[in-house]
């Protein structure tokens, strides 16, 4: 597995084994800043150049990769696809080949097409870090979510995790399902029928589906809310005004969960659409911890691949 990470990079969670994930999570803990500190400054990526290639808009993921790269002493360049030659009609493979000719050591890539990193990886001998591909996977998000849960709970095993919202179009959900399942969590996926394909139940062991929020939240240790991905939907699955009524997270829902429940969201949050402001700003919310862990987890991943 170590060799694959070094040669291919991190394409998905599905193909990682539990041991590798645990190592990354442990290392991320080492990178977490103490109170009042910032992230550790290391030299693990000294002399290494990383290109962050974002074909889809991103703020938090891009910035957190950039900070991770710099704290590890590496050089990095970020490219937004709008400003690159792709807007002049260059194909993805040509763009990557052109970049590869400038000899970076790794490419961090976000792309709107599912499987784009897998496709590029077949034609390019360069480690790729998948920073989100279409509706497929977002592996570093799942790692930072797991790190965040483990900051509040001793183990993932046996944990009850409710993932609520637009599961069908969520790469965050897919990566989390793979990761949590590998550690033996009980996962409930909840959303309106057209955003909750029944085949999700076959994706990994320990996954159950529900259309009912109250049912999904009963006894939950972790609530993961997902953004409603309007840009990926062909037609509205239900009236927007009804969505919050049935699948928006409000304080009374949190009461149904375990008393020590934590509420997570990959961001950016839509207040009043997926969750109410009261919940987003409550003591239960660990949304900013997630962002904080984003840097630590990406440091661990980059160090593992390039260090």
């Amino acid at each position, binding site marked *: 597995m170590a060799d694959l990470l070094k040669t291919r990079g991190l394409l998905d969670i599905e193909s990682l084994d539990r041991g590798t994930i645990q190592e990354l999570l442990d290392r991320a803990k080492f990178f977490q800043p103490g109170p009042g500190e910032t992230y550790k400054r290391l030299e693990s990526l000294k002399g290494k150049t990383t290109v962050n290639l974002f074909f889809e808009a991103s703020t938090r993921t891009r910035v957190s990769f950039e900070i991770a790269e710099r704290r590890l002493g590496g050089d990095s360049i970020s490219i937004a696809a709008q400003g690159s030659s792709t807007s002049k009609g260059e194909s993805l493979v040509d763009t990557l080949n052109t970049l590869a000719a400038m000899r970076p050591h790794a490419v961090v890539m976000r792309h709107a097409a599912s499987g784009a990193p897998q*496709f590029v990886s077949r034609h390019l001998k360069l480690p790729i870090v998948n920073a989100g591909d279409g509706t497929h996977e977002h592996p570093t998000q799942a790692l930072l979510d797991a790190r965040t849960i483990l900051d509040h709970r001793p183990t993932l095993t046996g944990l009850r995790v409710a993932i609520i919202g637009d599961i069908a179009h969520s790469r965050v959900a897919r990566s989390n399902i793979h990761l949590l399942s590998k550690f033996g969590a009980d996962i409930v996926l909840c959303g309106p029928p057209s955003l909750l394909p029944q085949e999700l139940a076959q994706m990994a062991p320990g996954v159950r589906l529900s259309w009912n929020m109250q049912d999904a939240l009963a006894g939950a240790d972790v609530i993961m809310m997902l953004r409603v991905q309007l840009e990926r939907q062909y037609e509205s699955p239900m009236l927007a005004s009804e969505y919050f009524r049935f699948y928006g997270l409000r304080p009374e829902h949190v009461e149904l969960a375990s008393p020590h429940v934590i509420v997570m969201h990959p961001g950016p949050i839509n207040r009043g659409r997926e969750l109410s402001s009261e919940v987003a700003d409550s003591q239960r919310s660990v949304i900013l911890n997630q962002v904080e862990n984003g840097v630590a987890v990406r440091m661990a991943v980059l160090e593992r691949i390039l260090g």
Partner: protein
Amino acid sequence: MNSLLITGGRVIDPASGFDAPADVLIRNGVIEAVGANLRGDGCPVLNAQGSIVAPGFIDMHVHLRDPGLEHAETIETGGKSAAAGGFTTICCMPNTIPVNDSAMVTSYILQRARETSPVNVYPIGAITKGSLGEELAAIGSMKDAGIVAISDDGRPVMNARIMRRAMELAKALDLTVIDHCEDLNLSAGGDMHEGPQSVKLGLRGIPSASEDVMVARDLLLSELTGARYHVAHLSTKRSVAMVGFAKSRGLNVSCEVTPHHFAITDEELCTYDSNYRMKPPLRRDEDVEAVIEGLVSGVIDAIATDHAPHAGSEKMQEFERCPFGITGLDTAIGLSLAELIHKGRISVNRMIALFTTGPAGILKLDRGTLRPGAPGDVTVFDLDTKWTYDVQQSFSKSRNSPFHGRVFRGGPVATVVGGSIKWTRN
């Protein structure tokens, strides 16, 4: 005209029930005799020792991309690929630029074929003008110019009323109506078969129902109009069941399956390799099993490749941006032997029928048999020689095959069209 004596092979002609070691004598481009120890009187001889000698194989569903998309394929290169794949006759779909919706385009295709193709080419005309699904094409003039069927392959007629009118006209003109069965509203935006695999990969699904509802609609319209109706590249277990049901009720319907739909499933898509992107999409094990049972039981009448060449750059993109379709002429016999013969699912005799009498009957072609007087088209193939498919060696202009590197057991040995050897192995 060409004469040829093919000696020493096992001759199988499903149309006449002949299956024995024999020679085949073609004189002046026409089968003269099949029997022991024939004399060629000095005409060229093709030694078929150790091989099977069959009527020329017919592929009733190919895309030649000519006119208009000659960077991907031409009538010449598609024809050469067909000959190398063991086919003596191919029928080309009308989705060219311009669409074959007029006698002029039909005549162009036939003329180019005469000038450049080593194999017989029969055009299939469009059902509607421009295959836009709105108004009927010049079906009568195309029939006079030489089309053998009508189809809006790839852009199915969504309006049932127009499909009804097309079937009525086709019945009067004695033409078969071929439909690519896909409800475009149900399949819109889809990348692959909708199921556990599409959900896991985050690719948009094309449900089996998008095929099934169109098969159901068409079978009902075929009953209403009495038209001869054919389902192209059927891929789901329910479609097989419905065609079987329609046949049991005596409807004049038929269907074909492609080799890839009986050889592989949507599990292959885990690598996001665009060479597994086609319509209909690769389906599940249960569908593959149903299709093979359809080949065994006789519900399925023909094997056709749906040879769909695309230039390399078009397939070298993110999966969801690539066009649908794969090439198939080179590998059809190899895949059929691997999945149907070597696994003991059907007899060699039945396999030959699926490539000869099956399509010839559907399209009413005067071909697909070795009876004296028939055109001198012969496919020679063997059952056991190991070979590795190298897509770079294909005569096709395109390289979009998922079977590159696959090792086959048995395949085409020689292709004879009108008594003339058009291709031999080695």
